[in-house]
């Protein structure tokens, strides 16, 4: 492989805060060879993203400082002046970011955004740059690239946007590509496509890739070497197989242990807690035995039948309905007390809308939702308010689901007061208790949400949901945005609460490995419909519907030995759930595979 293309020595990045300069990356050194993929793994705050920004000198100058050296083609990037750095960025070293939704400029066409780097670095004229941009769009396998060149980013799906980002980064054939969590925000099937793409382009362009991620499954899939970071320090570096098979550092071991692995629940009857992620304690502690088992023989807590939610799209002079989004189409299931039913599927499949329709946060068009035998659809006023005591929701983004201006203690106490369960003083005492229950200190009640980490905030959200002692919690991607270790803690908390309080969960997620860990039963959604539903083991081990199979096969496996085992997926978006106004959904035929395991016959 020869000389390293990028050679980093003693990279130290510090930020100025109220207490002076604080180093965030501490003396990091590594080499990157051409065609090599180096994964930098770590959790939030480990300094992995700052490392990437430091290499491109994108750390804000006003309060950031980069020291050390980073040699690229004989030049030290760290000491290069801004003007020269501009000629290198996007040209010799390029970067793609985590959030494809916000990383593209919404007011420029994708063609313009790709051409820009070509015009800047290759001195092309507009026409030549455009032609080249088209070629690259083809290269990143965007269907109908010629038409899409002049479209704006908002008309692209997340996966397609990430392809555009890649096209943009690779337009000038850089020697080094830094990919900062490029697939974290994407659905599993799309993630698999993007990883394939990066891999094939890397070969073609002979690039070195620095791949920053927290997902060990992804690491196993693509990395040649792995560098593990913890709080700004490199704790371990080595070949991928070596890291996975013989992790030297305790932190690495814990990290690996915390990753839910699809198929690891084979033979387990009930959901099982993750190994506790406690520093110093490396023995994975087994799960406590569940207190409550699902009460299948009682009347179900929740029965959903024929739930249908559609959104109208209007256009034209008279604002006539020109189409409908069939977000939820004839969905039926039931949920027992103490049971966890997972709704899985990809973005836009209607799983979130199903949850929100049940809670009446959106008004369903048809169907019935019976909660403890009472019909929830059509309830109003006081009844609805009472219903909402029993059904609570936890949202995906713990940053967005707390009011930034209200101390968490008050946020937890508020529903108690609003529902008249207690006076303010007592409510605040209860809030303190709830904080304790979710593993936070009662003294934190006075703090504002931004003073908490993501995992802590999600605990606050759970505490708030528990404040009304609900019977059902709809957890909408409640752990998807959390770091592995935090994710494990929050999941364990949820399982503990279920066993101690007998809660039922409607667990909405796109992460199959997590779903396997926590569910009693699983329902797979596709284009607004449930295509397969059944006990957890049946769905994971004996998937019947082609979509379920596709979903399962796309999940990265944290085992480098099994790399490349799965067939490449074609680059395509999910079909759209938008239908013509006169569309009548076809009758569906269900086939029973085994007891409780139903699958929709594909038409």
């Amino acid at each position: 492989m020869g000389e390293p293309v990028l050679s980093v020595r003693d990279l130290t990045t510090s930020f100025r805060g109220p207490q002076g300069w604080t180093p965030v990356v501490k003396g990091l050194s590594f080499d990157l060879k051409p065609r090599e993929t180096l994964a930098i793994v770590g959790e939030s705050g480990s300094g992995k993203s700052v490392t990437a920004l430091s290499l491109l000198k994108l750390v804000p100058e006003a309060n950031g400082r980069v020291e050390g050296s980073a040699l690229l083609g004989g030049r030290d990037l760290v000491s290069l002046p801004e003007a020269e750095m501009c000629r290198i960025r996007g040209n010799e070293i390029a970067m793609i970011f985590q959030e494809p939704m916000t990383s593209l400029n919404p007011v420029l066409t994708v063609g313009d955004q790709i051409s820009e780097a070509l015009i800047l670095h290759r001195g092309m004229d507009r026409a030549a740059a455009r032609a080249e941009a088209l070629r690259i769009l083809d290269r990143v396998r965007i269907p109908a690239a010629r038409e899409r060149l002049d479209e704006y980013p908002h008309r692209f799906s997340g996966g397609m946007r990430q392809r555009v980002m890649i096209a943009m980064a690779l337009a000038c054939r850089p020697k080094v590509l830094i990919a900062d969590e490029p697939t974290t925000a994407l659905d599993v099937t799309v993630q698999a496509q993007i990883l394939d793409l990066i891999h094939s382009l890397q070969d073609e362009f002979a690039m070195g890739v620095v791949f920053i991620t927290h997902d060990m499954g992804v690491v196993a899939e693509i990395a040649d070497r792995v560098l593990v970071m913890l709080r700004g320090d490199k704790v371990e570096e080595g070949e991928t197989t070596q890291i996975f098979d013989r992790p030297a550092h305790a932190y690495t071991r814990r990290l690996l242990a915390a990753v839910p692995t699809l198929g690891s629940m084979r033979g387990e009857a009930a959901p099982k807690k993750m190994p506790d992620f406690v520093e110093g304690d490396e023995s994975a502690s087994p799960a406590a035995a569940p207190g409550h088992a699902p009460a299948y023989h009682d009347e179900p807590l929740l029965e959903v039948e024929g739930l249908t939610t559609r959104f109208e799209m209007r256009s034209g002079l008279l604002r006539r309905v020109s189409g409908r989004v069939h977000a939820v189409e004839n969905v039926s299931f039931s949920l027992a007390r103490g049971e966890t039913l997972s709704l899985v599927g990809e973005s836009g499949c209607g799983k979130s809308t199903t949850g929100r329709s049940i809670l009446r946060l959106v008004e369903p068009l048809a169907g019935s939702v019976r909660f403890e035998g009472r019909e929830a659809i059509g309830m109003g006023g006081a009844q609805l308010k009472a219903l909402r005591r029993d059904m609570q929701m936890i949202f995906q983004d713990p940053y967005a689901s707390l009011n930034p201006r209200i101390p968490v203690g008050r946020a937890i106490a508020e529903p108690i007061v609003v529902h008249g369960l207690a006076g303010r003083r007592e409510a605040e005492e209860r809030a303190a208790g709830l904080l304790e229950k979710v593993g936070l200190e009662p003294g934190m009640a006075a703090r504002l949400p931004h003073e908490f980490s993501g995992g802590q905030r999600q605990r606050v959200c759970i505490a708030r949901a528990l404040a009304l002692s609900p019977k059902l919690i709809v957890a909408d991607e409640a752990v998807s945005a959390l770091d592995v270790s935090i994710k494990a803690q929050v999941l364990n908390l949820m399982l503990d609460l279920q066993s101690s309080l007998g809660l039922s969960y409607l667990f909405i997620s796109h992460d199959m490995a997590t779903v396997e860990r926590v569910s009693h039963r699983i329902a797979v959604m596709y284009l607004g419909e449930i295509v397969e539903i059944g006990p957890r083991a049946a769905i994971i081990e004996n998937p019947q519907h082609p979509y379920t199979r596709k979903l399962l096969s796309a999940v990265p496996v944290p085992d480098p030995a099994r790399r490349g085992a799965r067939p490449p997926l074609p680059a395509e978006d999910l079909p759209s759930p938008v239908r013509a106004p006169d569309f009548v959904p076809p009758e569906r035929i269900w086939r029973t595979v085994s007891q409780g395991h139903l699958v929709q016959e594909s038409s």
Partner: protein
Amino acid sequence: MPARRKFIIMLSFLIRRIALALTTGFVVLTLVFVVVRILPGDPAQVILGDMASEESLTALRQRLGLDRSLPAQYLDFVGGALSGDWGESMVTGRPVVTEIMTVLPWTIELTVVSLLLGTAVGVPLGVWAAVNRNRAVDYAVRVVSLLGLSFPAFVSAVILLLAFAIQLRWFPVISARSGSVGAWFQSITLPALSLGLIMAAYITRVTRSAMLEVLSEDYVRTARAKGVPWPAVVRRHALRNALLPIITVVGLFLGIQIGNSVLTEIVFNRPGLGKLIVGALNQRDYTMLQGMMVIYTLIVVFVNMLTDIAYGLADPRVKLQ
């Protein structure tokens, strides 16, 4: 999107907005009729002057139709308005439409030019301040823009006249001249400067805060990672995204400004709607006031429509609803 489809969307948007404007216009018509008659004061008195006796005033009121019942007057007024007959000014006897149309171009011209000027000054200043947040430049720009906000238009107008028309003699004092491009330039510059500087003050502030927001967006980082030099990042990537709030404020200002430039019109002695309406008010010229206020409403509605279209042009995500 094919051009034809775009055109149809735009057309149906326009038609719907115009229909809405007409409904509003009708409500305003009624409101205006009532309001005008609530005003204290008597047009007959103003027309005949202070020597008129009560008898001649009564006669004139009769002739103007002011003695008839309000419903009868209202029906007449609405009927006329709908058939395009706005009547004649009670004071000058000239048709209301003619009076308004003679001065409207002056007002539009002044508003548009000062708006362009305000934008041309305000946007770069706001960007400059945002890019240099909390440095001396930022503070200086903010103070200057506050100066523009707190000084009344006529004070700055007189200062401009003293400096450029009296001391330097570059421009005439009386700006209402027409004819050649040079003369037009001479006549528009100072008034547009006077109004434009105030607009610039507002626009500067909005641009600054919008830019601060946008500069922390992910796509700005993306652009830098592509190697786009900082000035181009600011111009091409950040500024275009900061346009929406700027358009909002410009639209709001445009609506307010068309009605409120009377002091500028007076000091620079330009014809304009502001002077016309103040005159009509001082003379209790009912017909004129009615026509003027309907025009004002239509202008505001029209400006809002323009704002919406500008939104659509500035941001491809905005759909014309």
